[in-house]
């Protein structure tokens, strides 16, 4: 993977995800950070990415809206989107998967869980 976009309004969460990505061996990818969905969308339009990791509950544009935008864009449609949220449960997960999310993880995420979720993309 060359470029990964991380969208979360919390700098702490972005740093934590960055650390997890480094631990699972993706530290050499270019990790780009956005504070909300709209900024993430701008970054994705600017340059292609291989993965989008997004929070749900964000100001300006939330993660579910970002996911819908990505999946409705002909250029971004195939981009894998992994949602990492503190507001996830089975019903929410189903809703996000039906919107096209690649996976849904609950915070606090661990490197092992992240690795497991990304396995299909890494193989």
């Amino acid at each position, binding site marked *: 993977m060359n470029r990964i976009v991380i969208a979360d309004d919390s700098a702490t969460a972005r740093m*934590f995800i960055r650390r997890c990505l480094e631990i699972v061996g993706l530290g050499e990818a270019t990790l780009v950070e956005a504070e909300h969905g709209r900024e993430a969308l701008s970054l994705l339009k600017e340059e292609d990415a291989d993965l989008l990791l997004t929070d749900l509950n964000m100001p300006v544009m939330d993660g579910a809206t970002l996911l819908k935008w990505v999946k409705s864009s002909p250029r971004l449609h195939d981009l894998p989107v992994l949602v990492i949220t*503190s507001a996830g*449960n089975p019903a929410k997960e189903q809703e996000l998967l039906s919107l096209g999310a690649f996976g849904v993880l609950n915070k606090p995420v661990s490197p092992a869980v992240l690795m497991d979720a990304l396995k299909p993309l890494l193989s």
Partner: protein
Amino acid sequence: MSEKLERDIFSALSTTLENMAFMEVELEAEGAQTYPAEEILVSRLLIHDPIQGELYLGMPKLLLRKIASSVYIMPEEEISDQMVLDMVCELINTVAGLFLNAYLPGDQTYSLGLPEEITDGQEDSPFEMKRWNYQVDNDLFSLVLAGDGFFDS
């Protein structure tokens, strides 16, 4: 108030701090270090649905600096005030999600607000409130849950 509520609150806090900073949360014990109000940072998160309520997390800035140092892998003296503030907000966000996932029956969905700092350091809720005191590394901190619907039974 149900034992389940207390257990779910403690479990959410423990899981959050263990996973993020490898720190063990304990119940308040005699001799725990307390701090004056001006040394405590309080964050609040509104719970919109299905139960209306609020969650407050009040932690000493020194403890938050330690936690942030562990998350950012940086010396404590290099942790900025903004990082400390962001830390307490991310902690309450994560705790709230874990707590509601465990507490609400089945796969009931819920809706949360965005975490915010309480600048006067006071929890002031129109709802019934319950405070729990815990400690990490002997530093005392508190979590307050407000919301009539949480204490009905």
